């Protein structure tokens, strides 16, 4: 199969077993990432975007656990696919993939580096973890990486500590570190949230430029529809741990199917809007994770809910046309009998 996706996540369930009860942070998420493509995962805070990313790398922290589903990663060799969800989370195999084949860029450039070591130390370490190279060689490569992500005078910056760099530079260093082992997939978890707008644009440009050069896949996680529009080929909209809609970026923006996606798009401020007009918002707030609504998780806030259907049955992600999938009863009949 030539067109097989590089990464395919199937019905992933990552639950947190807290004293107050089980929080189903990710509850049956499915999506695919094609080689060289950029997938944007969008949703409000707490919808499970970040936990999905952590699950792929198998670094979900206690009391979180993957309780179901599979994460198939296609390997370069003939071995075919490996199910990341089945690997020992501290074992050699997943550690070779972490940072090596799948790398992560964090949302918090301020605290994502240890203040006790120079940035050079922390990048060299990553290189030496995955590649059999000497200190000198790793250091030279680190300087090259820093130059590539646009850090001025990298041969001096390499010996600086993270707190000596600005937020934007730090995020560039973070990206350099993620790229250090030529990953096939780069997961960027809110890479620009903590940065000011100008820096945001620079970082996004940098990511795109690197992607063009290396041909890697990118999963970009954000709550910012603008970032999605600028970066993504495919979009996955998440709500309360489930994928409610997925499809190519043009379709999602121009003919969104799911009421949640439509509401999200309506709430983007536009420069063409009438001055002082109130921005449409999504009524209500995200339900407390211990208190998930029965049926479709979005129905209490949905303007198009169908009484007797949406609050009883749980919708499944199904195709609505050739390109898009949505999880909504506006497009499908309930498949199962209502739970008694």
């Amino acid at each position: 199969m030539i067109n097989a996706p590089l990464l395919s996540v199937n019905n992933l369930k990552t639950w947190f077993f807290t004293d107050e009860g089980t929080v189903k942070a990710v509850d049956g998420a499915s999506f695919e990432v094609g080689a060289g493509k950029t997938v944007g995962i969008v949703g409000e805070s707490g919808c499970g975007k970040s936990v999905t990313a952590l699950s792929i790398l198998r670094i979900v922290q206690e009391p979180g656990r993957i309780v179901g589903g599979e994460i198939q990663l296609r390997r370069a060799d003939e071995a075919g696919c490996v199910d990341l969800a089945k690997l020992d989370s501290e074992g050699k195999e997943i550690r070779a993939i972490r940072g090596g084949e799948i790398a992560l860029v964090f949302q918090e450039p301020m605290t994502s580096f240890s203040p006790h070591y120079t940035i050079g130390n922390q990048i060299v370490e990553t290189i030496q973890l995955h590649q059999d190279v000497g200190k000198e060689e790793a250091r030279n490569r680190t300087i090259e990486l820093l130059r590539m992500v646009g850090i001025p005078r990298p041969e001096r910056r390499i010996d600086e500590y993270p707190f000596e760099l600005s937020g934007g530079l730090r995020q560039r260093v973070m990206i350099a570190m993620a790229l250090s082992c030529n990953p096939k997939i780069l997961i960027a978890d809110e890479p620009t949230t903590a940065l000011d707008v100008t820096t945001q644009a620079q970082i996004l440009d940098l990511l795109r430029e690197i992607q063009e050069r290396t041909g890697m896949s990118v999963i970009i996680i954000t709550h910012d529809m603008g970032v999605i529009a600028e970066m993504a080929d495919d979009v996955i909209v998440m709500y309360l741990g489930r994928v409610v809609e997925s499809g190519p970026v043009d379709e999602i923006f121009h003919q969104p199917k799911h009421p949640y996606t439509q509401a999200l798009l309506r709430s983007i401020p536009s420069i063409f809007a009438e001055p002082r007009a109130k921005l449409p918002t999504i009524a209500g707030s995200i339900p407390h994770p211990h208190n998930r609504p029965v049926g479709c998780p979005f129905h209490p806030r949905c303007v198009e809910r169908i009484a007797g259907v949406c609050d009883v049955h749980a919708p499944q992600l199904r195709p609505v046309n050739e390109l898009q999938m949505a999880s909504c009863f506006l497009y499908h009949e309930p498949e199962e009998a209502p739970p008694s």
Partner: protein
Amino acid sequence: MLTYTIRRFLLALLTVWAISVLAFAIIQLPPGDYVTAYIAQLASSGVDVTPEFAENLRQQYGLDSPIWVQYMKWTQQIARGNFGRSLEWQAPVLDIIGDRLWLTMAVSVSAVLFTWGLALPIGIYSAVRQYSIADYIFTFIGFIGLAVPSFLLALILMYLGFRYFGANIGGLFSPEYQLADWSLGKLWDLIKHLPLPAIILGMAGAAQLIRIMRANLLDELRKPYVITARAKGMSEFRLILKYPVRAALNPFVSTLGYLFPFIISGSIIVALVLSLPTIGPLLLRSLVSQDMFLAGTIVLFLGIMTVIGTFISDILLMWIDPRIRFERRE
């Protein structure tokens, strides 16, 4: 960094001077003076003392001059290495402290090594495996270690040692070496006697340190940089030692300053119970008998030790935490 070190050093000297004033004030605090006490001693042994004799003595010791002159004389003597004579022991203060100082250091250093050697690994383990059975067991033992007074622990261990192992208990030497000159045999005898006081003295500290290390490390383990390191594919063991543990060490290093006077004085009560020939009981006795110069010298030593300890911990902190280094470069 160099200017900072020099500035700290000068400040330390200033502090030492302030401590010497305080120590001298302590010497002068009890009513009466050396001569009063000396005459009282003579009188009690039946010798009749005339007021002229007392006056002569005062002149001889310079006790009739104003306090600040006396202070100058005292510090001048100290600068020459003369810490005065002990009233009670009728011997130079340094001779009395001499051996005890080294023995105290031996006991205290081994206690500190025991404390750190036990507390750091257990603290790290307890944090990494939070709420595991071993964590609960260590926590339980830790609280018991905190709650049991160390002199009680000393008594119990002494009893057990005597009852079941027939060990000669207390002291730092077997009787045959008690008064012997230093030799390899005596040194070995000392090493054999060290573990018991080290464990007793270190137990409470270890229990406390385990709690501190556990809490510090739990904080650090939740920081994003740990997730970053994990996302690189580092092994858990290396990762924890390299990143969060190093950050969690800061509070340990900054309490080093208080450790130094402890190394000298030790724990007085435990030393009494175990009849250890250390400085602690000596200080207690000199205070009770108003042995001014001895007490003053020990107090001065303890103060200087605190200053040196703080100085060293400041330098070490700069070394392990680059943020402090940079803050202070300005």
